[in-house]
């Protein structure tokens, strides 16, 4: 009895502290991980499409194609792109889970809890991003099967790149979810955005020699700046900058790509946290 009194009084008096908000972020993150871990079907289905792309689409096309760069066939070129695509598609569903939570009512439980809305949005973003990265890593495990050898160092370098892409896409998803109320509408909007983002990002083809209209769209697409660094780390930077983005005649380095994507991610996170706080 004494214990509980002291708990209630100290907590109430303190209000929401930074520590409490961190716990909030962690709790929301942990919930996503728990649900993902329980859902074996989801885990398997989420890697089926990417694997089909690599092993059926990729290998099928490679048979009729020359090497794209010395020692790199189409499947190998495609492989890093598909990792990026997996992460993008998976993290975008952060929005779906927010809309879902609203629809089944759980969002209210979250919104009346004594944690800040911003920490809810952050926890949600990180939870989905973590799952997306895990899925990316699962695909990465298939690298030897397409003739790509990875060092531990490469894998370590890939983790932050994957996480950055995942965070930018999941916060974009959450931002949209705060504005769109029905699951049907969200699914519609998602495929409207997701497929152009995948196709116009250099997942499937090199970014050189594209028609002008496509070139513009590709370079406006933030995902482009997430795919290129992943490809450069996995395949190594190519001498003729086949894997790089050239913007206004300048060939962008890996760090420049990362900077562009990081700016986009930061903007999305801030917007998502702000917009999440405004809902009633």
């Amino acid at each position: 009895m004494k214990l509980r009194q002291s708990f209630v009084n100290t907590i109430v008096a303190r209000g929401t502290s930074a520590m409490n908000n961190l716990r909030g972020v962690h709790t929301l993150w942990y919930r996503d991980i728990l649900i993902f871990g329980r859902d074996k079907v989801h885990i398997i289905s989420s890697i089926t499409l990417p694997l089909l792309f690599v092993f059926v689409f990729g290998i099928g096309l490679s048979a009729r194609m020359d090497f794209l760069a010395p020692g790199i066939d189409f499947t190998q070129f495609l492989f890093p792109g598909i990792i990026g695509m997996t992460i993008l598609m998976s993290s975008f569903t952060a929005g779906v889970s927010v809309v879902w939570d609203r629809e089944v009512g759980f969002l209210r439980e979250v919104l009346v809890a004594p944690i800040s809305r911003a920490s809810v949005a952050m926890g949600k973003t990180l939870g989905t991003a973590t799952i997306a990265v895990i899925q990316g890593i699962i695909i990465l495990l298939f690298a030897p099967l397409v003739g790509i050898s990875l060092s531990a160092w490469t894998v370590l370098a890939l983790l932050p790149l994957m996480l950055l892409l995942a965070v930018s896409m999941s916060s974009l998803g959450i931002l949209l979810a705060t504005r769109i109320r029905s699951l049907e509408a969200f699914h519609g909007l998602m495929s409207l955005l997701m497929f152009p983002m995948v196709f116009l990002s250099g997942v499937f083809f090199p970014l050189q020699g594209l028609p002008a209209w496509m070139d513009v769209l590709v370079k406006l697409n933030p995902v482009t700046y997430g795919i290129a660094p992943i490809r450069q780390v996995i395949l190594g930077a190519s001498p003729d900058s086949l894997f790089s983005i050239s913007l206004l005649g300048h060939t962008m380095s890996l760090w420049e790509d990362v900077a562009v994507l990081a700016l986009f991610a930061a903007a999305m996170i801030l917007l998502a946290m702000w917009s999440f706080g405004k809902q009633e």
Partner: protein
Amino acid sequence: MTDYIIKVENLVKRFGKLVAVDDISFSVAPGEIFGFLGPNGAGKTTTINILCTLSKPTSGRAIVNGFDVVRQQSQVRQSIGLVFQDPSLDVRLSGLQNLHFHASVYHMPASIRDQRIEQVLRIMELWDRRNSEVRTYSGGMKRRLELARGLLHYPKVLFLDEPTLGLDPQTRSHIWEYIHDLRQREGTTIFLTTHYMDEAENADRIAIIDYGKLIAMDTPDRLKNIVSKDIISVKTDDNDRAVEEIRLRYRIEATRDGDGLTFEVANGEEFLPTFVREFGTKILSISLHQPSLDDVFLKLTGREIRQEAAIDEIKTIVRQYDRRTRH
């Protein structure tokens, strides 16, 4: 300490032109069971949403556990527990995991968390099913889990928004046993909205709200005194003639109510046999009843709350059915 735990002063909430809550003021004493009664759309849920910081008042102010609901949101949130009208559980998690989530966002230290979770699950008789996914729970179990969760973090005030809507009468009365028990055990203040009149009788005090205005506030017994007499409901083959006859013969003004009419008499049990014998208009059916809160509502508003409640209940059941079949 103050003599109130909730204080509402001149609260107004407008949605565009609609005035959902129209200048209401009241206070609730610590440990009280306070019922908010009225038909749907009367402003009950809007008021609760303001009190639990989900919505901001247009004007006026509200204090919960000493904190302002607009300026001290997180302190208010920490002080209250909520059981919503619509389900708000994560059905993909187990009952235990739902409570762990709650304990964690309400900053409960691990030292008291596990013990408290076990306690509330045992009170709600869910301990044996704690590891099952919530999607396998029945409607009554889900509601009990929501109650367990609402009181997990020792809230000073527990808000129950239509806590037993759509549940069968047996589960409903069970839930009320728990609520009374909780008040006794932990001195929790209960703030309840309902449109079930029989449910409202569990409250120490009732505020009746209609079209956003408070139209009465008192104990159930004293409210019933508003309708001091017994009520006779009668259906005849010519209601207009019957009204006329009642007026002439007994000097009582009967009111039309659906396809019948009602009027009040001092001693219904003695009145009824004479009435049936003497009455000239053909009687199709007749009933006598002692005053209830339904009658208070009818008296105060000229409308019956139950018709609206029934429609509402059907809507809820349809909604729950929809939700189940969609998953």
